[in-house]
């Protein structure tokens, strides 16, 4: 099981042929208190880079992009009842959606743990 990251501060954890996607701790800190999350429905098809979910803090709305081309297997319905899970457990219970990628090799272009941490260092 490996975790990869995007420059848009999403994490992707591959489990067999399904990838779980969420936003990183850095991303939730930047957003502040999350008050609303809209996740995609199972069966929806996305191209990599397409807007797949919405996350809103008190102040502003942000998009979460599909990091991989594929079909949504599940959206995290728990976030509808408790959006603050994104703040309290961003890389665990605060996951956004599970997607079945068409082409697993898209994972190869993503940042590994070390590269993502280097990106955060650059961001100060």
């Amino acid at each position: 099981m490996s975790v990869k990251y995007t420059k848009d501060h999403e994490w992707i954890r591959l489990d067999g042929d399904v990838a779980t996607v969420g936003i990183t701790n850095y991303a939730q800190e930047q957003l502040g208190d999350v008050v609303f999350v809209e996740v995609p429905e199972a069966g929806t098809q996305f191209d990599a880079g397409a807007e797949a979910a919405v996350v809103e803090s008190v102040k502003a709305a942000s998009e979460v992009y599909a990091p991989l081309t594929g079909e949504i297997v599940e959206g995290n319905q728990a976030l509808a009842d408790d959006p603050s899970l994104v703040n309290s457990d961003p890389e665990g219970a605060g996951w956004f959606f599970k997607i079945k990628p068409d082409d697993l090799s898209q994972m190869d272009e993503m940042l590994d743990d070390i590269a993502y941490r280097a990106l955060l260092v650059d961001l100060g």
Partner: protein
Amino acid sequence: MADTTNNLKTTPLDQLHHEYGAKMVPFAGYSMPVQYKAGVLQEHLHTRSQAGLFDVSHMGQARLQGSKAAEALETLVPGDIVGLGAGNMRYTLLTNDKGGIRDDLMVTHCGDSLYIVVNAACKDADFAHMQANLTDAKLEIIEDHALLALQGPKAAEVLARYAPAVRHMVFLTGQALRINDIPCFITRSGYTGEDGYEISIPNKDADAFARLLLSEHEVMPIGLGARDSLRLEAGLCLYGNDIDETTTPVEAALNWTIGKRRRAEGGFPGADVILGQIKDGTARKRVGLIPDGRAPARGGTEIQDLDGAAAGIVTSGGFGPTVDGPIAMGYLRTDLAEPGTRVNLMVRGKAQPAEVVKPPFVKQNYVKD
């Protein structure tokens, strides 16, 4: 003072903001705290339950001097300034010749002068406008005073520890008081819907006094993020969002700021348009909106009627922490503006049903007697 890295001005509390872990953002040419460590949600809720300290030193403060100052100011605003008693304070508007709003402001009758507070983003233009048009009064811009707001149900108790007289002030009054021997001008006012005070204090004393207030267990520093969500819940307009040069006081549902005598006499910029609208009505009106569900509708969101026709636009919208749900304000076709009317908010291309309401969204807790 200037921040050398990005040419932003700073307030006398800049060092304090950094020490308290503020996230600083550019706002109206100033480096200002948008939030501290607690975050917008906690800061908002704390202000409604305890007391919050806001740095509003970026706002423009001035005094209008002269025996005819009130008469002079009335040539620029539709509010009754001549009828304002000594020690009393009033919310009014600088209007333009088309009836639009140049800025909103607070005016306090101080006995020998009028004390004026205007928005940070408009202050240079406002003061130039006043200087150019007020021949019977002298405008003195106050640059050497910071402005702090202490807001919330515990504000009176806390501030009275330093200035006992503040307990006896009522909402929308002001007076000169000494705090720890520092001469301050204090008004019982604010822009959160809560009881509270605004304290004009010399720049050199502002930091020390802010630290004293923050040492009180009820007080937490509050950033601009919570200031915005608090004023939205209180149904108060944000200049540049909810009101601007293209919206009139009548469209903005601010008729209450135009006194009876001013309606009869006119004599302010755009009076023909504004008084005509009071008589004949307007095609659109500012209303409150409560979306069904949890998705906030932000400023700029289109409002449609139930047939899908364009009906208006959201000007301020977001999440109300005290309401615990999304709230918004916007301009809506007058035939739909009645509270209880159902409309659709077009959030990310999807129609979100919402109900028209009359702001405020929370009970205002002003101390009126």
